[in-house]
């Protein structure tokens, strides 16, 4: 298995995303990480919905299904329930997962099948050529909202936490190293991993995440969280976030020491509530930076484990089913 390389995961299909699309980087990082995970290639199934992002399976030389809009999560649930031996990855867009597929997403999260969700968030409908999506910011001017959108956007991390997700993380297409690390963490987690990836759609929503991804602004606008470490950011790690009660505040490290800061704890659901809520508009005054990394990761039994435990229990109590007895039922009579 260790002999697999990224090349083994490339297909003969021409990749058809627009040149410059953030999807390319994500594809590359997935192809880089998968061979290192020790999973036989034939045991990997990638299930996607519909959208630019959902073309992903065609470019991955594993088993894969490009399904219908919004339903990848539900298809993956049935696949994992019936085949717990497979490594199941879901690739979905912001519209696919949170608009048409919102219902299946929350139910997958609460059930906690051991699968990975890679949510390509470009805050736009790419494939249908540029309508606003459930993650687009308010007042967005798009083809379908010439006077600005009225919808209040979803905060994906908070949504996932509200649905009792057991693993919530955020990364970005423009930070390959971080993205690779998040992919590894997602795979390592036993349960549903919800990984939101900021992905640039250079055609319909270019630079949507510029402040977080570009060299000049990234250090000031993005805070990378790590378990057990203080929330530090700034070009020279000169700023920190501390908790004043429940309220996070930015402080200067010339006034505070690392011990005074908010120490990240992936297992703390209360802190995760606050962390996922760091979602300020980066153009607003006194805003907090946007967090990246693993926000929350706890253990809870996986659905498919419990399902198959029930089956095993039924088998041990009742024995292997006797079809003739089942067909005959409890009351029979004989006609001579």
């Amino acid at each position, binding site marked *: 298995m260790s002999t697999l390389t990224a090349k083994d995961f490339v*297909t003969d*299909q021409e990749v058809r995303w627009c040149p410059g699309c953030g999807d390319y980087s994500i594809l590359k990082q997935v192809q880089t990480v998968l061979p290192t995970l020790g999973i*036989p*290639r*034939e*045991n*990997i*199934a990638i*299930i996607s919905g*519909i959208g630019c992002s959902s073309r992903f*399976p*065609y470019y*991955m*030389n*594993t*088993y*894969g*299904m*490009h*399904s*219908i809009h919004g*339903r990848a999560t*539900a*298809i*993956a*649930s*049935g*696949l*994992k*329930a*019936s*085949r717990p*031996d*497979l490594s199941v990855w879901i690739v979905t867009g912001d519209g696919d997962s949170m608009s048409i597929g919102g*219902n*299946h997403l929350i*139910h997958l999260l609460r059930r906690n099948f051991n699968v990975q969700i890679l949510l390509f968030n470009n805050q736009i409908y790419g494939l249908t050529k540029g309508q606003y999506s459930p993650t687009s910011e308010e007042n967005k001017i798009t083809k379908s909202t010439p006077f600005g959108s009225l919808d209040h956007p979803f905060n994906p991390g908070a949504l996932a936490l509200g649905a009792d997700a057991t693993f919530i993380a955020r990364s970005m297409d423009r930070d390959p190293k971080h993205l690779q690390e998040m992919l590894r963490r997602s795979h390592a987690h036993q349960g549903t991993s919800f990984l939101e990836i900021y992905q640039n759609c250079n055609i319909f929503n270019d630079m949507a995440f510029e402040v977080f991804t570009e060299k000049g602004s990234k250090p000031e606008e993005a805070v990378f969280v790590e378990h057990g470490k203080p929330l530090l950011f700034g070009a020279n790690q000169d700023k920190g976030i501390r908790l004043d009660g429940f309220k996070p505040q930015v402080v200067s490290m010339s006034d505070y020491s690392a011990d005074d800061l908010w120490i990240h704890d992936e297992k703390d659901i209360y802190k995760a509530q606050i962390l996922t809520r760091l979602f300020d508009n980066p153009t607003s005054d006194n805003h907090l930076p946007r967090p990246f990394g693993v926000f929350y990761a706890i253990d809870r039994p996986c659905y498919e484990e419990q*399902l198959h435990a*029930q*089956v095993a*229990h*039924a*088998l041990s*109590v*009742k*024995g*292997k*089913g006797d*079809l*003739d007895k*089942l*067909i*005959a*039922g409890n*009351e*029979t*009579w*004989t*006609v*001579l």
Partner: protein
Amino acid sequence: MSGIINEIEHVVIKFAGDSGDGIQLTGSQFTTNTALRGNDLSTFPDFPAEIRAPLGTLPGVSGFQLHFSSNSVYTPGDDCDVLVAMNAAALKVNLKSIKKGGTIIVNTDGFDSKNLRLANYADDDNPLNNNSLESYTVHKIDVTKLTREALAESTLGVKEKDRAKNMFVLGFLYWMYDRDLASTKRFLEEKFGKKPDLFDSNIKALQAGYNFGDTTELFSTRYTVAKAVVKAGVYRSITGNSAISLGLVTAAQKSGLQLFLGSYPITPASDILHDLSKYKNFNVITFQAEDEIAAITSSIGASYGGSLGITTTSGPGMALKAEAMGLAMMLEIPLVIINIQRGGPSTGLPTKTEQSDLMQAYYGRNGECPIPIISASSPSDCFYVAIEACRISIEHMTPVILLSDGFIANGAEPWKFPSASDIVEIKVTFKKSLDEGEEKFLPYLRDEKLVRPWSIPGYAGLEHRIGGLEKQDITGNVSYDADNHEHMVKTRQAKVDMIANYIPEQEINLGADSGDILILGWGSTSGVITTVVQKLIKEGHSISHCHLRYIRPFPKNLGNIFKRFKKVIIPEINNGQLVKIIRDLYLVDAIAYNKIKGNPITQAELEGFIMTHTGK
């Protein structure tokens, strides 16, 4: 023991009362007892949509009709010989369907001024006290009072005591039809074994009802119906939904596949989900999904992984599943979609029966999306049809729609069930590796049946991608090529049409193979058509009956059969659906007979209609 026992040929009895009166339970207990007695039978449970509709009101009446006989029985009967009415509303709703001269057994306590008012009877107009029931034999029994007396020593509250009323009535009927109480005693033991006071009260009420008949001079006659002359063998009683569950498990075992049911509760399909969730030790997985879309797509995921994916629902759920059915058709993987039809459109009449969704099954998807359709014609037929649906789905790598309906789903009949070894195996071949000389896996390379290989994740060297986008022939790669699309649409259609080579030819179920009139039916109208056509043949009419199991594709010889009859009449419980498809495909001037009232077509109705076409 009092009473002379008269032997009669058949009885149609209806139990009616508040939906909280335990009517369905009383009916099904009497049915089991009747079945064990060896009579042939057919039942028709008929209940309101509300779980606990307002007590005593007309819309709250729940009914259970049972037809049993020493001869063959194909329908629950038109009008009843005996009505058991637990209250005034139950009498009012059912009065029109009691035979003149029939027997009415009433619980007098259900005719107090409050009940009369709720049933819209004027205060001074108690039907038990005026002459309106003169043409019937009426037995008035104060069931409530007698039950309470029988339970005088019990420590249960009055409300709980009153709940045993139905057992009193059942006991009385067991006396009237010379029955043994054992089957219901066994049932009560299983149901209340762990609650001794409830068990006691039910048993006591049952026995008290029996003794009441035995000791009261009021009732002079008892009846018995001789065993039906049926084929020798071992029988059980079966409802359509239970038969579907058993058929699905059998198909899974016969194919060696894990069964995966993805379902979302909906009347009248939920019982299949309930049943299958109990059969875990048969390698059955059930998944109650968040909606019908997740129900079918999770099943698609399971089939993709190599399980036998099943999804069960009714009309509104079918509407939600439509897009995913198209995906399954494009993926060309096995999937059985079961629709227990009910009255539509929209939420329609959820607890009533209708052959509502044939058009939807046939045409109701985007694009050219042919999916085989198979239909069940009686409760026990559901078993065989479920197996057949799975067989076609697996052997032809296609989703299959199975249509049943509320009437068959809840109705019961005796069933001479097969032994598991009588059921033929279903052949499954997973593609596990490249064949000799095969360089690259071609997921859409077809065999002589136009069937592609079933390749599931887990096998090295066969990694491939499938999806809902149009595919290039053979490779399965995405293709927008114009000619390829036309070719693929035609190929998918041809694949479904070709199934006709693998199903039996249509037989003439009754009558000569040519003549004046052919009655063509599908689904739950089988019983009433059989009964009426049998009678008309006896009376000398030139009439035959064909009942379809396979609706898509139709059996190959169907067109030929039409040519041999002067008239084709198609009775349906809808506004004319099969008739449109038949006219379209065969250019036959078929005559529609339709009833859309939420209940089955009666013998009298069908016979009346046919007689207007006999020319005699």
